């Protein structure tokens, strides 16, 4: 046998040092020996036929991941016809999908005091040259006779405060009375798994209507009205996470907040209500307070590696009031 091995290895024996032909014991643990194989394969077929083959359902797959062809083939296997889709559910459009012809807040708004010349000019310019806004307000008055910007500002403030109170109380049932369906998911996302303590301390400047527009949806008579109200207020906000730890803001420090909140009402509907529809966040506002904890910046599409941990805040959440320094 030694001669046979020597023949197999050939002339290499002469050149390379002799390799140990015994298997080292240390590698045994990485080799697995199966114990489920019978020593005599002659009766394998018969042994296999003894066990009834059962098709197990795959619990890890979800119906959403299956393609249509896959579903069709499975229904065909079982001999079931696909069900007839009954798409006759009626739906009612109670709000528009976005903010049309959004207001562009002038830069430096809220920084100049109204006592100075520039500030006074700004104040006058608010509703003077805005012809389209005036036309829209006239249109709103045609539906709502007693519509007045002054009284509306007060109502808007009440709705704004009520919305935040409901957010703090996590009252989802009554939320739709003060928030449109378009803003609802954003509001819910912001209060998910959190405790919010919010308080409006005072109005630094009285709320005023800065913008108004009306559009019709599908038919010419189905009109929605949107108004943008400028709020310059002092607010207290403290956000706690699910475990009661402070996540954002503070209980004792009040912040000055400048906001442009869009309210919408379904004018053609007799029972339409003015509700919060969205917020306009201009680019020139100072950045939000950084979050109390660090987090990983999301990887950019060009690079595959994640960038280093930064202390800047994540994407702005829409309904939580932003703090600005004025």
């Amino acid at each position: 046998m030694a001669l046979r091995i020597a023949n197999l290895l050939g002339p290499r024996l002469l050149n390379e040092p002799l390799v140990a032909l015994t298997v080292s014991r240390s590698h045994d643990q990485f080799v697995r020996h199966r114990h489920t194989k019978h020593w005599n394969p002659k009766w394998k077929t018969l042994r296999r036929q003894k066990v009834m083959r059962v098709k197990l359902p795959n619990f890890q797959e979800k119906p959403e991941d299956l393609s249509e062809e896959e579903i069709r083939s499975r229904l065909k296997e079982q001999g079931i016809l696909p069900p007839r889709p009954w798409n006759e559910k009626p739906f009612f459009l109670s709000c528009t999908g976005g903010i049309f012809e959004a207001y562009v807040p002038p830069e430096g708004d809220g920084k100049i005091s109204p006592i100075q010349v520039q500030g006074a000019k700004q104040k006058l310019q608010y509703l003077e040259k805005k012809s389209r806004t005036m036309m829209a307000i006239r249109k709103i008055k045609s539906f709502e006779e007693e519509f007045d910007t002054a009284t509306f500002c007060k109502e808007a403030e009440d709705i704004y405060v009520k919305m935040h109170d409901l957010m703090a109380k996590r009252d989802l049932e009554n939320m739709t009375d003060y928030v449109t369906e378009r803003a609802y998911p954003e509001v819910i996302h912001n209060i998910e798994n959190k405790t919010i303590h919010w308080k409006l301390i005072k109005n630094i400047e009285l709320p005023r209507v800065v913008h108004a527009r009306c559009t019709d949806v599908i038919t010419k008579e189905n009109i929605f009205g949107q108004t943008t109200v400028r709020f310059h207020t002092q607010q207290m906000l403290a956000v706690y996470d699910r475990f009661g730890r402070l996540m954002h803001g503070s209980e004792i420090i009040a912040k000055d907040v400048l906001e442009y909140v869009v309210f919408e009402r379904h004018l053609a509907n007799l029972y339409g209500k003015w509700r919060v529809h969205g917020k306009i966040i201009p680019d020139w506002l100072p950045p939000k307070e950084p979050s109390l904890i660090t987090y990983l910046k999301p990887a950019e599409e060009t690079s595959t590696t994640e960038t280093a941990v930064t202390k800047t805040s994540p994407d702005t959440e829409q309904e939580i009031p932003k703090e600005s320094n004025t």
Partner: protein
Amino acid sequence: MTLFRTRPLLKLVSQYQSAVVLPAATKIHTSAFLQAWKPEDHEPQKFLEYNKKIYPPQSPDEAPRPAFVCHQRSNIKYSPWKMWYIACLVRGMTVDEAIKQLKFVLMKGAKDVRETIEEARDLAVKEHNVEFASNLWVAESFVGKGHVVKGIRRHGRARFGRVEYFHCHYFVRLEEGKPPKHYYQHHPKEPHQQLEDWLQQMRKRKITNSI
């Protein structure tokens, strides 16, 4: 005789129907009635309810409450009794250590356990305000019995036996912070603690009917 699998198909069939039960309608019936129309949704739900509990805000002088996240994977095709060994291995480890160890466990269930722990870690960072993904440890790790499919097999002399195909649910709870030194209560004690216990026992002795 072909086994007619209508129940799994109801799940597929529901995808064709875009008409969904209206929210108002679900308020009429209790969950027991609804479950009858969704036979496949027999996944355990009580463990995940812990994730929904919101704790009241803490005062600044209180010690911060450690964050936790509960996660599960249902109906893994593996025996629950075999899965128990893997669940026990992971208890009390940090998540990084647990994932590292599970990569080298030569059992089928280890893959599912590892994926569940990774998912739980991502959930903790995303939804439960956990700052560092590595600052988590496995607080609870256990197994439950899932779906069982029965089959038959023939033995010698026309005797028949039952073949059971087991599924299991794996539950894991990750908590923020450093893991404790000993996970179980009955751990071997430190020498000084043993000495104190012995001294206490000795001093507790009483001579009966003495003053």
